[in-house]
């Protein structure tokens, strides 16, 4: 790169603007000269500053393994602990540029215990350099690296046969390694495979063609990286926008923010909201102070829509005519990244694009030996192990197979307690399609609300004298229902009189109004899908009938607790009968106010003849329709 002058800046910026970025990962171990190769790439592309070079010289003397010569590996081994141990234990990202391209290199360790680090580095890379020590040839390590990077979706491989200087630049050695690898990788569906013989420590075939290996006619490493076409050329370009954030600065603006995962969008395009399935059209594509005529894959934008539809974080806005799938059960490939093993049946948070749901691994189909690819049986998955498994989520998730779209098929698993990222996964396909959910938007009605609770909503209305045992039976019933996973609520004098009906006394008018409100509340709760238990004396037929009429056929179950007044008065748990008899309590049902017994109660129970438990069981059978 030549000297730049301020007057050429426009030209230079234009040149920069046209530059593409290539992200790649280097796979190998320190012994293969990986750090040396990266250091060499930085050095050859003049991305090492003078002061860094000076620091490198002093570091080389202190920690170096190359005697008095510059140890390029030290340039990239960042953390102090690593420098001392002489190994790279994490993922580091390096930046350099040539006249043609800008590069982001993920530098990851190569040992088996760092499989997760390599997968992390590979997840954002478009190309992988597999580094091989020419003296050793293809090792189990090479196969492992190949397996990890292809699993993560990398389709462009450079086979860097390094340390050619230590095998006398022998072409036969190189050809053998190339042939071995081609044989091994023949099923990997690679888009490109470029073998290059190197001596990174001397720079042979890194930037300049090596005079030591005239038999090699192919590109140098830089020539290859600068020119390779890694554009993924999807067969179909369908618009996909995962929603990250709903922007509502005021009542007149509702913008849906996200980064386009695939395809293009223009104002007027017909789009579908998933998983709801609603369709509408794009009103505008907003980007800061401008409106765009078009936005493409990779752009972070804000969309506004022509109709008011419900869109939240985790939803997708997609091309209306080619929506992705929605499912809640998948076959997936999982790489486990935590010390604590993955156990099927345990629930984790799953994050896919912008959606977070609870997920459970149902079954490990098999574990894959990362070195040989052999399928092995496994009950649990340990750190750095890879498995094919089935997984279910609590809510439907919009997805695409990982091989179709990395952004919509890759997910992470998060431990619910430690909040650590414990697994990485790739969706292969859906086991059960939630197709009925995504084609037509369903109105959320009482049926939907009830369905999601797996129950039939009911209003169970207990009527009877004070002390007849209504509340005792209702309480027992609620416990039973709850134990069976039913969603219930108990309305009685205690929780209604103190709040909602605090303004009401015990005159007849107030008692009527009291019951009217209770019946209306019960109706709302049944509408919400609950099984509502109402426990009130409710002495008058008219009020009970009015309540019944609020509900649909079969929803209202009247339970007459017919315990005789003598027994009730004998119990007198609250001392109310005594008070009433002394005339201190007016309008007390059964004493100076009538109780109108039901004629068509769905069930009559008498707690003086049966135990409260037996009574509750009888009501339970009625509620469950048995």
């Amino acid at each position: 790169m030549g000297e730049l002058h301020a007057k050429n800046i426009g030209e230079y910026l234009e040149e920069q603007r046209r530059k593409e970025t290539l992200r790649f990962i280097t796979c190998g171990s320190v012994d293969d000269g990986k750090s040396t190769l990266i250091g060499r790439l930085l050095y050859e592309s003049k991305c090492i500053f003078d002061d860094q070079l000076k620091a490198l010289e002093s570091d080389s003397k202190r920690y170096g393994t190359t005697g008095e010569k510059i140890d390029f590996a030290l340039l990239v081994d960042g953390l102090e602990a690593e420098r001392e141990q002489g190994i790279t234990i994490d993922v580091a990202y390096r930046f350099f540029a040539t006249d043609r391209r800008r590069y982001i290199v993920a530098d990851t360790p190569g040992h088996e215990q760092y499989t997760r680090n390599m997968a992390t580095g590979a997840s954002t890379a478009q190309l992988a350099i597999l580094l091989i020590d020419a003296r050793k040839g293809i090792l189990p390590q090479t196969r492992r690296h190949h397996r990890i990077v292809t699993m993560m979706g990398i389709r462009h491989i450079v086979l860097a046969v390094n340390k050619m200087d230590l095998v006398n630049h022998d072409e036969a050695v190189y050809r053998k390694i190339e042939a071995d690898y081609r044989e091994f990788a023949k099923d990997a569906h690679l888009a490109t495979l470029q073998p290059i013989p190197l001596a990174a420590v001397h720079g042979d075939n890194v930037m300049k063609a090596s005079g030591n290996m005239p038999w090699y006619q192919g590109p140098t490493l830089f020539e290859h990286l600068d020119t390779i076409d890694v554009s993924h050329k999807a067969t179909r370009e369908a618009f996909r926008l995962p929603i990250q954030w709903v922007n509502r600065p005021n009542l007149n603006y509702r913008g849906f923010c996200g980064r386009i995962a695939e395809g293009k969008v223009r104002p007027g395009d017909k789009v579908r909201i998933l998983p709801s399935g609603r369709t509408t059209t794009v009103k505008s594509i907003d980007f800061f102070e401008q409106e765009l005529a078009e936005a493409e894959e990779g752009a972070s934008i804000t969309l506004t829509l022509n109709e008011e539809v419900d869109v939240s974080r985790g939803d997708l806005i997609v091309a209306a005519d080619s929506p992705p799938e929605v499912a809640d059960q998948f076959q997936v490939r999982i790489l486990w990244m935590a010390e604590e093993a993955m156990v099927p049946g345990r629930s984790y948070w799953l994050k896919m694009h912008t959606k977070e749901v609870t997920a459970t691994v149902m079954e490990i189909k098999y574990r894959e030996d990362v070195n040989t690819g052999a399928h092995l049986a496994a009950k649990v998955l340990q750190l750095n192990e890879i498995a094919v498994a089935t997984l279910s989520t609590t809510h439907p998730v919009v997805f695409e197979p990982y091989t179709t779209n990395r952004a919509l098929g890759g997910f992470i698993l998060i431990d619910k307690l430690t909040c650590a990222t414990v697994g990485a996964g790739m969706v292969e396909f859906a086991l059960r399609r939630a197709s009925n959910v995504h084609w037509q938007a369903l109105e959320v009605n009482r049926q939907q609300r009830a369905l999601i609770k797996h129950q039939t909503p009911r209003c169970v209305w207990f009527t009877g004298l004070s002390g007849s045992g209504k509340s005792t039976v209702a309480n027992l019933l609620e416990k039973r229902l709850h134990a069976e996973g039913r969603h219930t609520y108990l309305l009685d004098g205690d929780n209604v009189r103190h709040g909602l009906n605090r303004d009401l006394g015990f005159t007849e008018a107030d008692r009527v109004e009291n019951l009217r409100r209770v019946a209306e509340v019960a109706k709302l709760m049944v509408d919400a899908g609950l099984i509502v238990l109402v426990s009130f004396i409710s002495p008058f037929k008219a009020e009970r009938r009015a309540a019944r009429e609020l509900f649909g056929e079969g929803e209202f179950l009247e339970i007459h607790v017919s315990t005789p007044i003598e027994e009730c008065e004998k119990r007198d748990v609250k001392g109310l009968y005594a008070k009433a008899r002394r005339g201190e309590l007016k309008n007390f049902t059964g004493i100076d106010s009538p109780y109108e017994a039901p004629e068509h109660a769905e069930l009559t129970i008498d707690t003086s003849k049966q135990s409260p438990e037996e009574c509750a069981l009888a009501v339970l059978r009625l509620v469950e329709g048995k």
Partner: protein
Amino acid sequence: MNHYQQLEAEAIEIMREAVAGARKPVMMYSIGKDSSVMLHLARKAFYPAPPPFPLLHVDTTWKFQAMYAHRKRMVEESGMELLVHTNPEGLKAGVNPFTHGSSYHTDVMKTQALRQALDHHGFDVVFGGARRDEEKSRAKERIFSFRSAGHRWDPKAQRPELWNLYNTRTRPDETIRVFPLSNWTELDIWQYLHVEKIPIVPLYFAAERPVVKRGGMWIMVDDHRMPLEPGEKPEMRMVRFRTLGCYPLTAAIESPATTMEEIIAETFNTVSSERQGRLIDSDTPGSMEKKKQEGYF
């Protein structure tokens, strides 16, 4: 999409993702060029709404005068809330880079002060402008970097970060530092400032300024608090700054670059990295890594 659009789109995606998962986010605002880029990106990410978080400036009281002026201007322009925190104990004790040395000053007035401010406000997500190309230990930092209670950074306990799937969940006491500019280089920052016409502190442009040479570096005499050593006499030199911090700890470079174009040209042709002007990085080997473990940004 070209390179800058990609970097911009990525940074916006990161900011939106962080805010979506945050309880109480804040953006560190150091007044420097990276902060200027970050602030600009934040405004883009949430437009037409204002960014849904305040700015936090940890003020050592030793910043350049021009930085305070710029801070005032940017707060007015963005309409965002600015929180300023100075370590009250440090202020009372009169901690300064001259008598206490750069490393103690930085620890008390920056690292401890930052921890105080974060604890006081209870922020759980903190945006920072650090880039991976700045320093070796930064190259391994995640975009979402987790800090345990006490804001300590444990390089070995970082969460794997795959694809663009950022895990924003935290345990109580855990906080996240989020670095939207992770994948930017110094040159990217300059070019973006240029293309987007983002205002920056004038100190980045060369001008005649009073400086003295210390330890082979040009230090600007920004106010009367700077004690001069015997025989030291400020001289006017054409200098500018590649990075801005506390003025006694930030070295100027001699440069004729008075326009953005000239700065970009100079940056492109330069042979030393920008953190060279930061005296604190080279105190001891692995010094940035140690500061980060203590909670330095």
